[in-house]
């Protein structure tokens, strides 16, 4: 699956591979110590550059501020 920005594709692939392995072998087994931090920092920086170029940063910030719709049966 492509990234929003072609220049982030390689970083995204490396990060996704790292994350999927960590998620299956560590996180789900109870070891929630974060991993893949270095590659994520690079990938995230690349993505946020693209987000700002497309003026999506304010849309994302607004969506986060808006109170999410009430979750039915909270806690379920």
């Amino acid at each position, binding site marked *: 699956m492509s990234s929003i920005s072609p220049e982030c594709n390689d970083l995204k692939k490396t990060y996704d591979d790292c994350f999927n392995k960590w998620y299956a072998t560590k996180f789900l087994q*109870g070891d929630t110590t974060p991993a893949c931090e270095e590659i994520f920092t690079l990938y995230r920086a690349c993505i946020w550059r693209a987000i700002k170029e497309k003026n999506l940063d304010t849309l994302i910030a607004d*969506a986060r501020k808006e109170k*999410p719709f009430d979750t039915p049966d909270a806690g379920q």
Partner: protein
Amino acid sequence: MVQFLTLGAQIQHSWPNVTQAVWQKYPNPFASHVLSSDVVDRTVDPVTGVMTTTRLFLKKGVMPKWGRSLFKVRDAFIMEQSTVDPRTCTMVTVTRNLSHKKIMLVEETQTYTSLVPQSALDASRSDAVPITQLRTDVRIISNTGWAPIKSRIEGFGLTKFQANTLRSSKGLLHVLENMSKQTQGGTS
């Protein structure tokens, strides 16, 4: 006016596998409308162990033909915020559109929980089939001022959503089946 919809489904796969498939869902043959997928933020709470993720998707073709002529809408950015709690085996994803919110805002909350069959609680039984319960809650709201168009958009949203939910489940199952093939030695 706001439209609500709640759907329940049971997935015949274990909760850990289902949540892995959620991360690896795209691409799949039932999601050709998804053009991009990115993780824009992700943290793990050191105390609770809960992982919070924000993903951004670009999807194409959100409006029917009659709507396109009115609103000039093409692709839409979608944001997904999620939490995964491995201790309680609960994953919640909340998805909403960032683009075209005035025309129609669709917020979908999906809750994945582990449904342990009674037979599995008995330690002597190891043949229990793992099941994941998926609950989907949708809220659709149109802020377009003109009432006839507004109700038509909301109606369209609901119909379209029901069709999309079916397609989305097929996509998830496809990914799950591919994952189990790989786990079984990748002979295929």
